[in-house]
């Protein structure tokens, strides 16, 4: 078997449709001829799409669907990792939100005079803001 004949038989060899004597002859040729061996391995890379029978393609698609998950880039996190990471982020955001709510509920910021006036606060409260308990003159007077 020469290289030309060998390469012509690649598709049948791939589909295991070759009669045993020819398949053995081809295998023998691939052992001796490095170029044909390389060509066969390159052929094998595209053969699942270019040379597979419909039933074989269905077996590849259907058989794998049940057992293996769909392809995922290595850079993307796995399913469990997504769940764990999502939970951590949710907990963290809830914690931050709770802290903010608690801060504004408990500690109200100090009012300025303008705020107090515009809110019609009682005059005692305004005077408390307006007139400090002691002025620097008291220090001199004392």
């Amino acid at each position, binding site marked *: 078997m020469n290289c030309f004949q060998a390469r012509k038989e690649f*598709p049948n*060899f*791939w*589909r*295991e449709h070759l009669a045993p004597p020819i*398949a053995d002859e*081809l*295998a023998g040729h*691939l052992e001796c001829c490095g170029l044909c*061996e*390389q060509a*066969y*391995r*390159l052929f*094998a*890379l*595209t*053969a*699942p*799409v*270019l*040379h*597979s029978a*419909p039933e*074989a*393609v269905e*077996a*590849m*698609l259907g*058989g*794998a*669907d049940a057992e*293996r998950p769909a*392809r*995922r*880039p*290595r*850079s993307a996190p796995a399913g469990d990792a997504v769940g764990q990471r999502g939970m951590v982020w949710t907990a963290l955001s809830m914690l931050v939100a709770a802290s903010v709510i608690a801060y504004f509920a408990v500690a109200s910021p100090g009012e300025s005079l303008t705020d107090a006036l515009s809110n019609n606060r009682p005059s005692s409260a305004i005077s408390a803001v307006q007139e400090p308990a002691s002025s620097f003159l008291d220090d001199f007077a004392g």
Partner: protein
Amino acid sequence: MLGVASTARVEGAEPVRPDEDLVAEVRAGETAAFAELASRHRRRIEHLCRRFFTDPEPVRDLTQECFLRAFAGLSSYRAEMPFAAWIRTIAINVCYDELRRRRRKPEELVADFAGGETEWLELVNHASPEELAGAAEERREAYTLAHRLLDSLRPEDRMVLVLKDSEEMGVRAIAETLGWSEAKVKIRAFRARQALRKQASRMMGARRFRIFK
């Protein structure tokens, strides 16, 4: 191979009506006959689309598109060409349009591989040729990796490879189907193999596989 439905007869059953009769019925206004035509050829057209696209959804959509175009253009069908060949031509053109619409992805080839794909690459590189034959069965990775490799080719290169290798069409038939010259088909086939080898070499290069030493 293409005209099986035209002449096939099943023993003990009613003879299968030729495609051309069904086409005549559809033309006469019996649109239900087109459902019979579609059911006869759907699987083969779907399989042809699968040579170009991995995901089942676009494959289904394209198959449907083929039959819609066939139905719409049934008046232009001439009986000298078997219906199977005619609808295959439509499918080839639909797939070619879609291939051109999509972007090539040569850069994805050198990106990361999933675990199963690496295993398959190892197997392709190290298994004996006998072991390799049939080893791809029930390996989705073999299928997806082959698609990734083919996705990196130019649409016309991929088209020629599929028609020549998978559909076993001759240079003249490809030229007629795509409206190219025979010389162009030959050149594209040669360049397609060159490009495939180069892309495979890129893909495997980092791993120092012996295929492309």
